[in-house]
């Protein structure tokens, strides 16, 4: 504040000097004609005026300088005072800062401790929760796995039963058709043998008896045939 005051004073002084100079210039310009047209008295007056203004100015300047010097001194003293004050304030500030720091440290320590405690508690809780969740998840997994296994087993059993039934059915069908085919084959073969039975026996007899049957037996068979024909009335006209 005091520093600002010194500076303000200096600035005011500068402004004041400038104003004075300006006034003088205006006066000079205003009175330039007078000065030009002026007489020696005027010149003398001007010179006097100038001397007065110079004196005034110098006096103003001196006062201003003294004021400035005072202001400077005051400013310096104020500055020094401020410096001392600021040092004092600085020291106070540092002291208070240190105290504040200590207090903050203590507070921080306390809050850290509290935080640590609460963190530990939180960690414990979290661990407990996690353990609980893990246990629950494990149980659920086991349950799900058991359900899945049971379901799969049931499905497999059903599938196997179905496949078994299907295979059994197909095998039975195949067996039935095979048996039927075998039966049909047997019947066809028997029918074929039956159809060709006479020829078979005939050829067998021809092979066996063709060269063995004596003439008498042949003749007997011929008479037998003729008798049979007669009995069947073949020879009726």
């Amino acid at each position, binding site marked *: 504040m005091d520093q600002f005051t010194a500076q303000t004073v200096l600035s005011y002084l500068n402004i004041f000097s400038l104003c004075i100079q300006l006034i003088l210039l205006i006066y000079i310009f205003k009175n330039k004609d007078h000065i030009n047209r002026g007489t020696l008295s005027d010149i003398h007056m001007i010179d006097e005026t100038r001397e007065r203004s110079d004196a005034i100015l110098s006096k103003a300047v001196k006062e201003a300088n003294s004021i400035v010097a005072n202001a400077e001194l005051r400013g310096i003293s104020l500055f020094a005072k401020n410096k001392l004050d600021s040092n004092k304030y600085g020291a106070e500030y540092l002291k208070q800062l240190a105290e504040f720091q200590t207090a903050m440290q203590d507070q921080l320590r306390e809050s850290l401790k509290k935080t640590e405690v609460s963190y530990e508690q939180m960690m414990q809780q979290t661990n407990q929760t996690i353990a609980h969740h893990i246990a629950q998840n494990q149980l659920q997994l086991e349950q799900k796995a058991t359900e899945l296994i049971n379901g799969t087993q049931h499905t497999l059993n059903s599938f196997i039963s179905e496949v078994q039934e299907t295979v059994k059915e197909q095998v039975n069908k195949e067996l039935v058709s095979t048996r039927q085919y075998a039966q049909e084959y047997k019947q066809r073969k028997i029918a074929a043998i039956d159809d060709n039975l*006479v020829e078979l026996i*005939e050829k067998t007899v*021809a092979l066996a008896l063709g060269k063995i*049957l004596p003439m008498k037996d042949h003749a007997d068979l*011929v008479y037998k045939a003729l008798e049979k024909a007669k009995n*069947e009335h073949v*020879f009726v*006209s």
Partner: protein
Amino acid sequence: MLRTCFTKTELHRRINILRDFLEAKFFMGETHSLQDWLYAHHIPDPDSQAILSWGKAFYDSFTADNVYQVISDFTKFVSELPILTMYLPFTPQEKEMVSLGIWCRKNINARCILDIRSDPSLVAGCTLSWNGVYRDYSLHSFIEDSRDGVKKLISQYAKA
């Protein structure tokens, strides 16, 4: 003639022999007797005996003018006779032929003649054709008649 000839073949053969003799006698100056001529021409005994059994009166009825006419009449007569065609699995001898002929004349027709043909495939028995109707009395027929019995016999063996 029918008393000594029972088959169509025999009849035709013996009529041909008769024609040959008569042609020789009437147109070729044959002077030998029938018996000599038959012997000279190596006619088999059954034919010779059958021809000779027809009698002198039979041969005296032939002349140079009627020989072919009579032969033709004989041929026509033979063709009009009832014929029993028999298929036999063997070639019967003369004796069997005569027996068959006698049986047929006795049981079928007093004037029928036999047409014997050989068919070894018959194996046994015979087949007949009379009045255009064919009848099978061969082994095939006998087995066919006994088919059920044979099947039963075979099935018995099969089960055993």
